[in-house]
C-alpha cells in the first residue's frame, strides 16, 4: 500500500511544468529545451463570465407585484411550478375560491409534502435543489463557484472542450485555429462533457434538463456553430444529468441522473434510448465505461454501486460500508477498477476477470490521509478526500485530485501523481505532486491522456494549463 508519506516533498514555488526521470519539475535548467505542447492556455476569470446570478423562478421579486385574476395566476403557477405551484396558489387565495376547493387543495398539498418528505428521508439527495444536486455529484471540487464547470480532452487528438460558468462551451485546438463557442437554449448547468470516441466531431454535454450532442465540424472555421448542430436527447424524469459515458466503440452513450433510478442507454444517431432500471440506491450519479468496453460502473447516491457487464446488460451489486462512490477509473485492459468513497481517504481496488470471477471484496491500495511536509515558508499539509481519479490510457500514471481545506492556508488541493504497475501484483508507486500557482486552487483533474511520447495532465483552476510530462516507457525503469 502506498501512502503520501513516501512522496517527494512538493515544490511550492511555481507551477509544476513537466516530468523527467521520475521527477516533477517546475522550471527548466538553462540551456534545456522542452518541445512545447502546442495548446493554448486560456485564462478564465469569474468577472468576465456573467453567470446566472439567480435562478429564473426567483426573478419575480424584481418586478412590482400586480394582482391578476385567479385564473391567470393559477395558469402561471401551473406553468412555473407544476402541480405544487397550482395547489399552493389555490390554497393561498382562499378568499377567492370556494371553501371546499381551498381546503381540498390544502389537504392534497399536505399529503404530497408528507409523501415527498418520506421519499426524501429514504433518499436524502432528493431534497436538494437541482443546482445543489449537480454541484454535489460533479467531479469538480467547487462546481458552483468555479469559472470552469467541466472539461474534456478529445480521446484521439490535441483538442479539448471546456464548459464555463455562463453555460457556454469553448473548444480549443492548437494555438492558431479558431475556438468555436457553443451555446444552446437548453444548455444550462453543464455537469459533464465527453467527446465521442472514434469520431472527430461529436461532443456529448450533460445539461440540467437534457442531453445535447454537438456536431462541431473540425474543418469548419465558424466560431459560433448554430444550435442546429446539436441533437437534443431527453426522456421524461431523466434530469438533471450528472454523468455521461460513451462506449469505447462510440456506438452507445449512457447517461445518468441522481433523480432517475434508471440509466438511459442511447443509440445517439437513431435518437432512441433504452432505460435500464434498478431501484436500489435511488438514482445514478457517476458512470465510467471500462476502456475495453466490457464493463460499466454505475455509482448511486446511496452506499452502493453497480458494475454492469455490457454484453447482456446484467449487473453486480457492490454495497459499500459507508459513503457513496465518488469517483472511479478503470485500468486500460478493463481488469482493474480503482474507486474512491465519500468520507474515506483511501483508494480501493477491485479486480475483474472472466475466468476466475475477480475479487470478492475491494482492497485498499493507497492511503491518502493528511501528511505534513516541511517547506521553506512553513509546513505544507497534503491529503484528504479524493475528488476525482484518472488513469492514463497506457496504464502508467494515475492522477488523483485531493480535496484540501479551504479554510487553512497551508492545506491546498493538489493532484497526486502515482506510477502504476500491474505485474506481478497491482501496485501504486509515488511520483509527485502537481501544484497550482500560488493563490490558486486546483479545481479539476479532469482527464489525463497520452500521445505517442507525451502525457498531458490538466490542472484547471482559474487557468487552464497544460502540464506536459515527458517520459518514454523504456525510461520508466521501476
Amino acid at each position, binding site marked *: 500500500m502506498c501512502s503520501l508519506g513516501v512522496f517527494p516533498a512538493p515544490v511550492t514555488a511555481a507551477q509544476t511544468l513537466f516530468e523527467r526521470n521520475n521527477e516533477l519539475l517546475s522550471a527548466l535548467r538553462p540551456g534545456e529545451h522542452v518541445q512545447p505542447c502546442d495548446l493554448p492556455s486560456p485564462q478564465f476569470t469569474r468577472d468576465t463570465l456573467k453567470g446566472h446570478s439567480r435562478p429564473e423562478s426567483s426573478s419575480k421579486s424584481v418586478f412590482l407585484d400586480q394582482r391578476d385574476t385567479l385564473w391567470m395566476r393559477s395558469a402561471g403557477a401551473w406553468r412555473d411550478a407544476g402541480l405544487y405551484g397550482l395547489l399552493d396558489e389555490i390554497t393561498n387565495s382562499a378568499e377567492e375560491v370556494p371553501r371546499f376547493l381551498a381546503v381540498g387543495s390544502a389537504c392534497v398539498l399536505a399529503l404530497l409534502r408528507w409523501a415527498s418528505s418520506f421519499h426524501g428521508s429514504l433518499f436524502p439527495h432528493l431534497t436538494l435543489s437541482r443546482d445543489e444536486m449537480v454541484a454535489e455529484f460533479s467531479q469538480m471540487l467547487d462546481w458552483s463557484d468555479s469559472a470552469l464547470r467541466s472539461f474534456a480532452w478529445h480521446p484521439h*487528438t490535441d483538442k479539448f472542450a471546456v464548459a464555463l460558468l455562463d453555460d457556454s462551451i469553448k473548444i480549443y485546438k492548437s494555438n492558431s485555429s479558431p475556438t468555436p463557442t457553443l451555446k444552446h437554449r437548453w444548455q444550462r448547468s453543464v455537469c459533464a462533457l465527453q467527446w465521442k470516441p472514434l469520431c472527430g466531431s461529436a461532443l456529448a454535454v450533460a445539461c440540467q434538463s437534457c442531453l445535447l450532442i454537438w456536431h462541431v465540424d*473540425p474543418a469548419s472555421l465558424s466560431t459560433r456553430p448554430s444550435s442546429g448542430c446539436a441533437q437534443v436527447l431527453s426522456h421524461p424524469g431523466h434530469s438533471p444529468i450528472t454523468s455521461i459515458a460513451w462506449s469505447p466503440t*462510440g*456506438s452507445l452513450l449512457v447517461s445518468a441522473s441522481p433523480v432517475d433510478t434508471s440509466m438511459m442507454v442511447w443509440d445517439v444517431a437513431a*435518437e432512441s434510448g433504452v432505460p435500464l432500471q434498478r431501484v436500489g440506491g435511488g438514482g445514478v450519479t457517476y458512470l465510467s465505461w471500462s476502456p475495453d468496453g466490457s464493463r460499466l460502473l454505475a455509482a448511486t447516491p446511496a452506499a452502493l454501486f453497480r458494475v454492469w457487464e455490457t454484453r447482456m*446488460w446484467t449487473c453486480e451489486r457492490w454495497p459499500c460500508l459507508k459513503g457513496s462512490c465518488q469517483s472511479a477509473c478503470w485500468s486500460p485492459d478493463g481488469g482493474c477498477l480503482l474507486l474512491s468513497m465519500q468520507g474515506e481517504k483511501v483508494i480501493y481496488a477491485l479486480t475483474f476477470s472472466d475466468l476466475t470471477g475477480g475479487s470478492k471484496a475491494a482492497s485498499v491500495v493507497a492511503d491518502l490521509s493528511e501528511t505534513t511536509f516541511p517547506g521553506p515558508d512553513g509546513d505544507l499539509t497534503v491529503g484528504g478526500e479524493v475528488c476525482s481519479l484518472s488513469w492514463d490510457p497506457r496504464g502508467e500514471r494515475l492522477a488523483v485530485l485531493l480535496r484540501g481545506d479551504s479554510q487553512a492556508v497551508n492545506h491546498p488541493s493538489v493532484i497526486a501523481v502515482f506510477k502504476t504497475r500491474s505485474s506481478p501484483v497491482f501496485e501504486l508507486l509515488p511520483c509527485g505532486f502537481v501544484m497550482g500557482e500560488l493563490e490558486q486552487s486546483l479545481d479539476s483533474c479532469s482527464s489525463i491522456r497520452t500521445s505517442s511520447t507525451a502525457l498531458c495532465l490538466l490542472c484547471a483552476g482559474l487557468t487552464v494549463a497544460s502540464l506536459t510530462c515527458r517520459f518514454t516507457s523504456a525510461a520508466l525503469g521501476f
Partner: protein
Amino acid sequence: MFSLKQNSWFIRKVVIWRAVASIAWSVLLLPVTTAVFVLLSRFSLFHPIQWISDCTSLLTASSTIFSLVVLCGVVLITGFFNLEFYTLVPSIPCSRMALLGTVLHPRQCVHSLVYCTMGMLVMWCASVTIGGRYSTLGAPCRQSESGEVVTCLNEYHLFLLLAGAFMGYSHSFLGVVQNMYYVSFQPIQQYKYPRFKGCLPMVVKCSVIQALYSARNFAALYFFFGYVPKTWISSTLNLQIDSSLQPLDSLTGLLDFSLLYHLSISGTFLYLTWYLTVLLFRIYVTEAYSFPVQSTFTEDAEQCLPKVLVEKNTFVMKFLALQDLALLSQHSLSRRLEVFSLSQPGGHPHNWNAISRECLSLLSELTQRLVAHQDAVASNGRVKSQSASSDTRSASSSSSVVSGTEDIAETPRLSVPLRTPGSVFKSSVGGANSALTAPFTPDVDSPFSSPAIRRLVGQQDPQSPWFGTVQSPHIMRRGPKLWSASTECQSNGSPPASPATVSSPPAASQKPSFLAQWLQNRKEQLPEASSQALFADCQAHIWALQGLSHLVAASFSEDQFGVVQTTLPSILSCLVVLLEAVDRHFKLPHASSKPGRTICSMGDSTYKTLRFALRAALKTSIYKITTTFGEHLIAVNISTEHRKRLQQFLEFKE
C-alpha cells in the same frame, strides 16, 4: 413477408418455436390481466370488502372461465397474425396514393375484418365480466302503453360491442399507418425477462392512451351515427327499443361517467391484450441467435454463418446472422479466431472470404442504390428546368398539398415512378414489402414510367454481387450518368415520344380532368419518405459495417495467417465509396431533416432514423480501422483519392 410454406430450416426450427413461445406466454399472462380488469371494473370505493369478495367469486365463476377461453382464442389469432404479417423491413408508402392503396388492399381488408370481430369478442367478454346492465343484448322491459313485459334491446351492451369493433378497426388501421408489424432490433442485448419488464410500463401507458383516444372518437361517432346500427339490430332481431331509458346517442346519454369509465377500462384491456402479444413476439423474434462459424459435419454446413449470410429469401435469418456477426466481432475472441482460421486440407481462408464477400456485396449494393437514386433525382431536376411552363400550372394546382415546399415534388409527371425507390428497388430490397404495396405503388411496367427508369431497373441486378471494389468511383458514377444524359437528350429532342409526356398534356390551355388532377396531387410524395424507403433495410448494413470493422480491427492482433490483409484494400475502398454516396445523399433536400418525435405509440418508428444511424456507423467503422492500423494504412494499395479521404480520418478531421 415470409410465408409459412417456405421451406427454410431456420423458419421451421427457430422462428416458429419462438412465435409459439411468445403466444404461450401471452396466454399465460391472460388470467393476470383479466384479474386486474375485473378488480378495476367492479371497483367501489365505499365497500372495499364487498368489492374484493365480489371479485374473487366472479373470477371463479364459469362465465369468466368461458371468457378466458374466448380470449385465448383471440390471443392465438393475434399471435398468428403477428407471425404472418411481421416484417423486418418496413413498408414505407412514398405517396398518399400508395398509403391509401395499402389501407384498401384486400389483404388489409380481411385483416381489419378479423380485428373487428376479435374486438367485438373481447368486448363481449368484457361486458359479461362487468355484468350488471351491460351483460346481455336483450333485456326485459315493460311497454309503456300495454304494460306487458317484452324483450328490449340493451343499448349499453350494443354500445360496448360496437366500441370493440371500432377499436379493432382502428388498431388494424393504425397498424398500417404506424407500421405496427415492423420489428426493430434494440441497440443493446438484454435477456428476455428484463426486457419485458422494462417495456411493460410503456405498453400499459400506450394502451391507456390509445384506449382514451379511441373512446373519445367512438363516442363522437356514436353520437352522430349511433341510431343506424341501433335500428338495424332492433329490426333484424325483433327487439323493442325501451323508450323509458335515455338513448345513448344523445348528449345526456353519453355523459354517463360510469359508462365512459367502463368503456375506457375495457378498451385498455382490449389494447393491452393485443399489445402484450405484439411485444412478446417482438422480444422473442429479435432475440440473438448464435450460428456456428464452422462445423465439423458436412450436413450442418448450411447452418453455419458463412452459408447463412448469403441466404437471400429468409430475411429474419439473414438479419439474425448479421447481428450475430456484429456481436461475435465485438465480444467473442474464440469465434473470431474461427473466422480467421484456415481450412484444414488446403489452407484456404474460406470463412473469412465468404463473410467479407457477403458484407461487401451488401454494402456495394447499397452504394449502387444510393447512386441510382441520386441520379434519378438529379435528372428530375434537369427535366424540371426544361418544362418550366407546364410546371407553373401543376405547381398552382398542387399548392394545397402539404409537401408543396419540396422543390422536386413540383414535377409530378415524370417523377412519379422515379420517386418511389421502394418500388424501383423492390427486387433489391427482396420483395419483403411487395405483397402489400406492390399493386398500388406505381409499377415499372405502367405507361406512366419513363423509359429511363425502365432501363435503370433493367440495369439493376441485385443478384450479381458488385464485388469490384477496385473500381474507382468515377467508373461507377459514369454508368448512371450516361443513362441520365440519354434521358435528358430524349426529353429535349422528342418530348411527344415519351409516354410520360403523352399522359399529361403539355399545353397549359388544356385543362386536365378533375380526377387526374386529384390523382396527381395525391401522388405527391410525402416528404423524406423516399429517403426513408431507401434506407429501410439498413439495419443489416449497419451490422455488416460493425462486424466488418471490428473483425478488421481485431485482425491487427489476432489474425495469425494474414487472411484479412488480402481483402483490406477492397474493404477500405468499399467503405470510402459508400461514404461518398451517403454524403451526397445527405445533400439532397429532406434527406437530413429529422423526423418529429412520435408520441407514445406501439408502432416502431426506428426506421425513420436509420439513415442517420447508418452514416454514424459508417464513419465509426472507418475510424475504427484507421485508428487501429494508423500509419500502416499508407502501405495498403488503394487509389489516391481514397487515400486522401482516409488521411482525413487519420487526422480526425471528419
